[in-house]
């Protein structure tokens, strides 16, 4: 009993001594983080408010870091579209049945915010929040393959990355996408993209 009391007393004194420690300056815990130069990630893409068809697919992304806050890169999307409501007609009946197939474009990214999510004691997950803009081309095809076309697109996006393990990260992005599906028709949709990637 005496031994236990002594142990508790020593522990309390130690804590008290530490609490009285004179400190100065700003205390930091250095992360073992690396400086990255490139990243590649794959995401599942889904258009959220497309009234004409259900569009989803995979997007492959590559970005190159220009310093710590800017990236330049590209993306390729391979999409599958199902016509959701054939009664909703467009001016051109061929376009009505033509769903977006593939897309490719360049991406410019600005990373204004990066930090750490503090989990429990000393565990922290690095994260960053970025804004991006993309410009490229979509290709369209109707189910029987007789109608094909291409058109431009541009998009603005907000992306959140969280580093999950060493150089791997999870990504969640929402974009507002505008594409010219025919000469006089633009589709304006919101998309959600989530996936995983690698930095090096």
């Amino acid at each position, binding site marked *: 009993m005496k031994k236990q009391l002594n142990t508790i007393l020593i522990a309390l004194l*130690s804590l008290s001594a530490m609490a009285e*420690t*004179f400190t100065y300056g700003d205390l930091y*815990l250095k992360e073992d983080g690396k400086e990255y130069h490139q990243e590649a990630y794959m995401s599942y893409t889904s258009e959220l408010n497309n009234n004409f068809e259900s569009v989803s697919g995979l997007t492959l992304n590559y970005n190159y870091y220009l310093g710590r806050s800017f990236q330049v890169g590209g993306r390729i999307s391979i999409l599958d579209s199902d016509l959701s409501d054939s009664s909703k007609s467009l001016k051109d009946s061929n376009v009505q049945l033509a769903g977006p197939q593939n897309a490719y474009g360049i991406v410019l990214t600005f990373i204004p915010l990066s930090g750490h999510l503090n989990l429990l004691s000393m565990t922290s997950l690095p994260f960053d929040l970025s804004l991006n803009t993309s410009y490229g081309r979509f290709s369209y095809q109707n189910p029987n393959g007789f109608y094909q076309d291409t058109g431009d697109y541009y998009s603005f996006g907000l992306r959140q990355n969280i580093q999950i393990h060493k150089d791997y990260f999870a990504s969640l992005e929402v974009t507002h996408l505008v594409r010219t599906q025919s000469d006089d028709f633009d589709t304006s949709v919101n998309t959600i993209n989530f996936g995983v990637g690698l930095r090096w």
Partner: protein
Amino acid sequence: MVRLLFITFFLTFNAQAQDMVNLAIAQYQQGKKSEAIHILEQVPPHSSQFKRALEGLIKIHYNDGSLSQVFGLATFYRANFKDEEDFSLEILSLEVLALAQRCQYEMAQGLLKSVEKRFEDNPLFERLRERYQITEEYGLKEVHLSHSPTDEKKKTKERWRLTKDEFHHLESPYRLEVEVKNKCKS
């Protein structure tokens, strides 16, 4: 039998830690600074050689001019070993001199004042105070440096700001840094 196994494990473990510190010192004497630091940072906090490993790291970082690491490790060293009999005043001296290198004389005075009660009967502490007074009065940097102090390279690694409470719960100081502005520049 279990007790014997435990004692053997404990002795082996401590012997290993002692070997690591000795190896690190040998590496440093051969000019292999990075290897020495890496070895010392492997000594776990619960090892009996942890204090010695910390002292080695502080000296290496001081010689290297990596003052943020010196401040971090020395603060942790003071927090954990100040009341021990073999607390090294040499380490305290290095911490004070590192602050003087940054012309942070107020911080250095505060540091000395915070420990004066503990070491008031120690003639070495009195000598440290006298040397510090001269340093402050004449604005001199520590005279025995083999190179002139340089600013550390701009940090590119991620750093996480610690509160005092988090510092007091820190088990391992190897990633701890304390940022102190260099007043001498202005």
